[in-house]
């Protein structure tokens, strides 16, 4: 132990720096001021001040999703910490490594309802992997090391350190984190034994499958299994469908890519899942948006489930073979052990791909009006067409960050991702307001790449204040505002399942051109198909951030759709089919 003394605040920052932290975000306030005071002594740590703590939380998420490194979020007690809660819950649902550092009132007054005191640990417990309040400066170094480790190991996720003001000020000689941590409950994943019986069982099922589909989830991105996924699919000749978070893990142009599965999944993906004899789930958790009616899901198929979190196995869908481990490692083992399909399986592949291709044709037919015309019933632009143009313009190479709603689903469907991990969205929690701050985080992580924030008029206004962060940090982000004047996704549900009772979904929107002007952001308005590409071109060339506002058709509906709790065989294919199946034909 060194005899040098430091205060708790400095030890906190020093430990973060020792663990390679280069950047933090957050918002200052009373109970965290001593730690902000010390920032000046840590020039190696850049600090981004957001305009709202939730914004900071999503900036950090964008950064971590893009580059894999932690960006701690430091906020004050009470309102600062409660403002952060949504971003933490979102990180938990989407397994994003996240470190929240919340100031707290001094230990002397904890429990007295002191000014800006709230029970942050109590709030954080259900939405974090781990949360602790530090009671002594002596504990800070070890606690920070512990939190950094927990956030980034096993199934990654959020962690919270709550640090009372007096602990930040108190001096300690414990300035170095111990080398070894005692964390019995943190599951880490050493390479699996290639001779596990489950590996052989999985290989046997794969070899014999006549109609297999891989279900590719976020785990592929989180374990960086880009090469392994492709090799596994190619070697076994298995087509792949993707959860919302699995998108961008295999180039869209790859012949085995069936696109997204689930509620708004592609016909070819959902039909393949419906008819498969083997589902190979790779780092995904059978969310209800993916399964539809759970009791009927995968009824006629075997299931191989490869997953890092043992509590996800058999949680929703029972696995015939379950392999618990890091996906990249498991795929490497499967690739090495796979020695070809049986003759029967090989022979039946052609028929399987034929049926898949028929469904691809069907999709293409239903999307024809989007590609050939591009306007909706009210002669305004279709979101799907705008995304399609963006996809063509960027050749599927750029970073796409979205908000939540119809524009998000159309982005997931019509952007053809060619590059690994270039898709950033709030999936599990589905948080409107994710887009703009997350785009800031992605841009900070990838300063030399183009970042497109695809947002809706509703979602944009949930964290619109982060335009101020863009202004202050002089960032160059391309904001595509798909304005349909409505909370479109909710309106879609009202249209389909609530008797067209369009309650509280119409928005009186501000003049976005003036808002852009106020924040020093370049602005354009687009209402014609032929103006889309020129506007994208302009946006890309602008050295400032830009907003391109599109006049979108409020009648556009995202198809196909498997409504919540429905079975796959009742997938609604297009508008005509919807009128029929929902008994709405007049």
């Amino acid at each position, binding site marked *: 132990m060194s005899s040098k003394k430091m205060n708790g605040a400095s030890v906190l920052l020093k430990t973060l720096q020792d663990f390679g932290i280069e950047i933090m975000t957050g918002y200052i306030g009373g109970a965290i001021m001593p730690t902000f005071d010390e920032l000046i002594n840590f020039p190696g740590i850049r600090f981004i001040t957001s305009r709202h703590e939730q914004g900071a939380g999503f900036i950090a998420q964008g950064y971590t999703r893009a580059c894999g490194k932690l960006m701690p979020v430091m906020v004050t007690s009470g309102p600062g910490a409660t403002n952060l809660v949504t971003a933490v819950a979102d990180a938990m649902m989407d397994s994003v490594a996240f470190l929240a550092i919340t100031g707290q009132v001094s230990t002397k007054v904890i429990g007295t309802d002191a000014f800006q005191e709230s029970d942050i640990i109590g709030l954080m417990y259900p939405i974090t992997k*781990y949360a*602790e309040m530090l009671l002594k400066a002596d504990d800070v170094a070890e606690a920070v090391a512990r939190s950094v480790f927990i956030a980034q190991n096993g199934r990654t996720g959020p962690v919270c350190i709550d640090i009372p003001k007096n602990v930040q000020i108190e001096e300690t000689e414990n300035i170095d984190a111990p080398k070894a941590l005692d964390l*019995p409950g943190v599951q880490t994943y050493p390479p699996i034994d290639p001779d596990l019986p489950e590996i052989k069982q999985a290989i046997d099922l794969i070899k014999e499958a006549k109609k297999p589909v891989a279900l590719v989830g976020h785990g592929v991105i989180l374990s960086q299994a880009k090469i392994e996924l492709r090799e596994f699919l190619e070697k076994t000749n298995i087509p792949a469908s993707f959860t919302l978070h699995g998108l961008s893990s295999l180039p869209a142009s790859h012949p085995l890519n069936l696109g997204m599965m689930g509620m708004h999944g592609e016909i070819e993906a959902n039909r393949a899942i419906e008819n498969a004899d083997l589902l190979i789930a790779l780092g995904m958790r059978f969310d209800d948006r993916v399964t539809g009616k759970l009791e009927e899901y995968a009824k006629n198929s075997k299931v191989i489930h490869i997953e890092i979190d043992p509590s996800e196995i058999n949680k929703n869908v029972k696995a015939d073979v379950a392999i618990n481990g890091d996906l990249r490692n498991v795929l490497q083992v499967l690739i090495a052990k796979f020695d070809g399909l049986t003759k029967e399986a090989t022979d039946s592949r052609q028929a399987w791909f034929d049926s898949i291709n028929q469904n691809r044709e069907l999709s293409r037919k239903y999307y024809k009006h989007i590609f050939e015309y591009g306007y909706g019933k009210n002669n305004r632009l279709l979101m799907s067409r705008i995304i399609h143009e963006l996809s063509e313009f960027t050749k599927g190479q750029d970073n796409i960050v979205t908000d939540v709603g119809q524009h998000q689903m159309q982005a997931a469907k019509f952007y053809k991702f060619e590059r690994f991990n270039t898709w950033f969205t709030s999936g599990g929690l589905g948080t409107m307001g994710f887009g703009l701050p997350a785009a800031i985080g992605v841009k900070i992580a990838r300063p030399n790449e183009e970042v497109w924030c695809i947002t809706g008029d509703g979602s944009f206004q949930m964290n619109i204040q982060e335009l101020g962060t863009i202004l202050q940090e002089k960032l160059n982000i391309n904001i595509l505002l798909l304005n349909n004047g409505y909370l479109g996704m909710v309106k879609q549900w009202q249209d389909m399942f609530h008797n067209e009772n369009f309650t509280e979904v119409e928005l009186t929107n501000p003049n976005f051109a003036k808002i852009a002007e106020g924040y020093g952001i370049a602005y354009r308005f687009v209402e014609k198909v032929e103006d889309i590409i020129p506007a994208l071109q302009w946006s890309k060339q602008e050295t400032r951030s830009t907003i391109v506002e599109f006049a979108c058709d409020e009648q556009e509906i995202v198809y196909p759709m498997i409504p919540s709790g429905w079975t796959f065989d009742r997938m609604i294919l297009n508008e005509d089919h919807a009128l029929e199946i929902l008994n709405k034909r007049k």
Partner: protein
Amino acid sequence: MSKLHTILVFAQNKRGVLERITILIRRKMYNLETITASDTEVEGIKRITITFTQGDADKIPQIVAQINKIVEVISVKAVDSANTVEREILLVKIKRPRNLSEITSLVNIFRGSVVDLSEQTVILQVAGERKKILGFITALKQFEILEIGSSGIVAMER
């Protein structure tokens, strides 16, 4: 009487462990019957016994997996009742009957004891497995029961 499922947890004695477990139980809508925490032969390690009602049978592997994710948890398992000793302590306060021997003979049958005697009331103590505890309460029906309290179940594998 419905059979209970018992989960035995060993965890580091840190603030918040019990809270995390109970939050999980509420969040996942499991039906908690009893929960106890106590010291073990190893300093700094707590034994936590949790019981659930029978309706939750298929949820047990899931709750075990979820509890296992709590950082401070060293081990967790659903115990096999055939291979486990499960005990709790019951205290019952009854109105003092005219004839005390009636009550003492009943207590003797259940190998319990009279632990407090006042002018108005008697407090009885019985220890044992749940079946016996419930049996004792049924046997006391002829007396006027004023209060019942029990420790919750502690489980130990053979």
